[in-house]
């Protein structure tokens, strides 16, 4: 760990040296500009801005602003491009010390996706925690898997797995209730607490998936101690009729995904657009290098609708989506007691004969998630905007298992209904200061049937927040504060006698961030934040046998909220040949909730089980993520991503369990020349080096961490011209050498190997039916 930090610091210093050495030009002319969307007049953020003569590249910030400094007097050709917009060249002459320009870019369907190249991008000068995104080809490839699995390719992001179909994102070592997921602006409310409960979201709705690393509670709400994941659909179109067809296949489970999206903005209604989207997914048993995994099939169907109508000042938006899945669970994992788990660990291969099938038998999970959202926004003028968002979510989860149950129904059933409303006031105090303030509320009702593991509950929260941003010459500052109150009432029924317990939690979150432009190619930012998380229902009340993990878990009603103090800093550089970002963080969590393993086994009629008690300690997580890309030759890019962290239980002086091991991902990419029929053809070879988890605690784990592993992968993609449209296609070979391995964060590593070689292929066909 220390060696890694040391290397990172050395690396950072050497970047700085290079950067300063570069800064020889003695000119001090500046070009500052603002980018706008031609049709809406809204600022365009994250658009690429390229100054041809000096080969300088930058991105517009969230207000559409960009700037180039240290220029000499003269004329410059600046090229702008953005996803879903046309490319635009503008000749700007820098005659005065400061030249200000405003550029509006029209949208253009034929250029859609043109400039989406790879994984990450970051807006300039955002005084937030470090963030990274999945877009373009990488997102298209991820869409053929699941949300959690796709996000694993981002630096600092990992996944806690329960087998091949269930991935829960882990950001900088934290997961589950400590991460918030926003689906189209709505905080996902399902049964997030379970280690085998994956996010109920269809990645196919997304145009970009952004991961914000660090405690960003002020903006997104309490509980975000680890980070936030934003699922962002593409903006609705403003004219024409467009469709997009997406098809993909994966050989590892003989699975396929197909999705259709239709966007329509009728010419006879002003400023009105609608979208319908749907997807179907099916997969069979996964294949590992040595055997199939029985009962790991999946079936999923999802759809969504969106509509938006804008008036002069008023705009109305509605959104509805539904997610439905039936996910098989590897039968060998749902076995029973400690004797069975030990037997499974001791045998190298599953005990039952394994073969391929699309059949899903017990045990399996059946999940529905429904989201409805309405938003009204009103422009008050002078940069002020008032908006009200109302949402409803319904989540149904049924778990079917092979244990004896009285009926053929699910052994366990959860239904949770959540209503939220948020009133936000976007305002501008001066040209330099602007911000958001608002009020949000939630009402949630959960019911449980079958084997009672958590009780019924009603949860009400209210939050109040205020954020201001200050823009200076080279600094951008942001400060925010938030106060949340939560009322939780749980209900119990023992032999007809109903009792309840009420809890109230309230606390504040605060953050201060700054971003400093060292030059127009380099920036440094930092975030200091405080966030809190109230104990979740399972941590307070769970009582009983968790079959999936063969353990007895006992909640503790006396738990107090966790409070996190997070410091993170990042440095990034973007030059013509080099792009790098280093992010270092420390997260101190007071009253960190974890499962404390009790020494004695608990005796039940099902046999003996290890027993765990929810407890609290103080924890410290320290780590860093580095991502570097270097263009060796014009056509060859070398890249490397490194993520490493250490988690310490400070009270007991021991390491925290299930912290991701160090990961290094080098890659080499070859960019072919564009031809008349092919655009951006690229091939890359990538490696994943996963180190063995060192100093993992042995208490609470049935077997020691598995060996480290190295995987090789191949990825190729291009756009192909077909008539008037460009079809995007990509291919990815995972685990090319068919390596046998098991991952530390996969709870099913006790039972089986990870999947073997698999070929993923996708095509995306956009069609413009009416311009």
């Amino acid at each position, binding site marked *: 760990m220390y060696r890694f930090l040391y290397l990172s610091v050395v690396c950072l210093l050497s970047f700085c040296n290079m950067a300063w050495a570069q800064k020889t030009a003695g000119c001090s002319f500046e070009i500052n500009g603002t980018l706008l969307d031609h049709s809406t007049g809204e600022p365009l953020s994250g658009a690429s801005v390229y100054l041809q003569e000096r080969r300088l590249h930058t991105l517009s910030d969230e207000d559409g602003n960009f700037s180039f400094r240290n220029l000499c007097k003269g004329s410059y050709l600046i090229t702008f491009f953005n996803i879903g917009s046309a490319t635009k060249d503008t000749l700007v002459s820098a005659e005065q010390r400061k030249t200000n320009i405003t550029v509006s870019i029209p949208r253009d369907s034929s250029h859609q996706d043109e400039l989406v190249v790879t994984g990450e991008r970051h807006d300039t000068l955002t005084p937030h925690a470090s963030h990274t995104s999945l877009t373009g080809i990488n997102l298209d490839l991820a869409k053929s898997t699941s949300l959690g699995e796709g996000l694993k390719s981002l630096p600092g992001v990992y996944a806690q797995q329960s087998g091949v179909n269930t991935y829960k994102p882990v950001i900088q070592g934290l997961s589950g209730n400590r991460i918030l997921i926003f689906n189209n602006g709505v905080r996902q409310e399902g049964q997030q607490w379970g280690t085998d409960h994956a996010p109920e979201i269809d990645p196919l709705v997304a145009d970009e998936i952004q991961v914000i690393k660090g405690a960003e509670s002020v903006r997104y709400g309490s509980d975000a101690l680890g980070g936030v994941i934003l699922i962002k659909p593409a903006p609705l179109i403003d004219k024409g009729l467009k469709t997009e067809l997406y098809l993909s296949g994966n050989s590892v489970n003989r699975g396929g995904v197909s999705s259709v999206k239709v966007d329509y903005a009728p010419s006879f209604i002003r400023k009105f657009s609608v979208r319908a989207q749907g997807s179907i997914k099916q997969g069979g048993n996964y294949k590992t290098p040595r055997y199939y995994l029985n009962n790991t099939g999946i079936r999923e169907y999802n759809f969504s609708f969106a509509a938006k109508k804008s008036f002069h000042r008023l705009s109305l938006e509605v959104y509805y989506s539904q997610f439905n899945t039936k996910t098989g669970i590897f039968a060998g994992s749902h076995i029973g*007691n400690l004797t069975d788990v030990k037997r499974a660990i001791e045998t190298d291969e599953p005990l039952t004969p394994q073969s391929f099938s699309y059949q899903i038998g017990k045990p399996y999970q059946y999940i529905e998630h429904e989201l409805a959202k309405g938003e009204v926004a009103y422009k008050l003028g002078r940069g002020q905007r008032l908006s009200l968002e109302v949402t409803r979510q319904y989540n149904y989860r049924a778990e079917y298992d092979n244990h*004896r149950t*009285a009926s053929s129904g699910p052994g366990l059933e959860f239904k949770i209904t959540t209503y939220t409303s948020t009133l936000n006031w976007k305002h501008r105090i001066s040209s330099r200061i602007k911000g958001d303030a608002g009020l949000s509320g939630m009402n949630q009702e959960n019911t449980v049937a079958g084997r009672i593991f958590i009780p019924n509950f009603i949860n009400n929260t209210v939050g109040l927040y205020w954020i201001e941003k200050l823009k200076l010459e080279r600094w951008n500052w942001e400060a925010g504060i938030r106060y949340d109150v939560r009322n939780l009432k749980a*209900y119990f029924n*023992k032999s007809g006698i109903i009792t309840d317990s009420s809890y109230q939690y309230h606390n504040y979150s605060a953050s201060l961030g700054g971003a400093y432009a060292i030059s127009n190619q380099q920036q440094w930012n930092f975030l200091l934040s405080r966030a809190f998380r109230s104990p979740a229902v399972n941590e307070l009340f769970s009582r009983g*046998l968790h079959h999936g993990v063969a353990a007895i878990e006992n909640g503790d009603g006396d738990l107090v909220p966790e409070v996190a103090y997070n410091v993170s800093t990042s440095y990034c550089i973007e030059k013509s040949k080099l792009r790098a970002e280093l992010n270092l963080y420390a997260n101190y969590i007071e009253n960190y909730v974890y499962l404390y393993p009790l020494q004695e086994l608990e*005796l039940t009629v099902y046999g003996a089980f290890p027993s765990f008690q929810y407890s609290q300690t103080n924890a410290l997580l320290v780590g860093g993520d580095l991502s570097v890309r270097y263009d060796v030759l014009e056509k060859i890019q070398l890249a490397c991503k490194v993520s490493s962290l250490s988690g310490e239980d400070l009270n007991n002086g021991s390491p925290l369990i299930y912290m991701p091991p160090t990961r290094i991902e080098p890659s080499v990419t070859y960019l072919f020349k564009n031809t008349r029929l092919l655009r951006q053809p690229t091939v890359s070879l990538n490696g994943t080096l996963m180190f063995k988890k060192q100093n993992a605690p042995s208490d609470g784990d049935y077997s020691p961490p598995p060996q480290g592993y190295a995987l090789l992968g191949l990825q190729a993609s291009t756009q192909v011209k077909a008539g008037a449209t460009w079809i995007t296609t990509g291919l990815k070979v995972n685990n090319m050498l068919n390596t046998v391995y098991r991952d530390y964060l996969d709870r099913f590593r006790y039972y089986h190997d990870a999947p073997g070689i698999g070929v993923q292929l996708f095509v995306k066909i956009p069609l413009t039916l009416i311009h």
Partner: protein
Amino acid sequence: MKKIILSSLILSFVLLVSSCKRNDDDAPTPQDQNEEELITTVSLIIKENGVLVDTFSFKDSDGVGGEAPTIEDITLDANKTYTCTLLLLDETKNPVENISEEIEEENDEHQFFFHPSAGTNLTVNYLDFDDNNVPVGLETELVTGAASSGTFRVVLKHQPGVKPTTGDTGNEALGETDVEVEFDVTIQ
């Protein structure tokens, strides 16, 4: 025109929300925790020549967690042949539910396995078989040898779809464990 669009938008939203899936259960009136099926009791009914000798029980009347189970020690005479009937009950229900009956009905999905510890002079022979002639274990014969002591472990496996259909031993490695209890045993 505007009004039509506005009202149709509002209407469609209302329709969407009202067509939503609903939860008809009410949080303040939770399901009785005892509704789920438990196995609280495993009794060994020991007979000799059809005459009841004794019963030995494992009882965990409040299920997993809470009170620790009570386990009676098994005492048998040396050099004898007994029959043993297993009775599985859910005593949290009123009337008490007989789970042995359900196992009997689904005997091609279940099998009991018996493990006297090493040095215990006790042999178990199956007396009941499913339709495929594979043992079940609700009825067994216990043959004792010379005086000795040790433990006696009883395991019930639920093996839907995977219980062997041939052979006379079954396969304990398959399926899920429904019961695993261990008694102390003395042969005197």
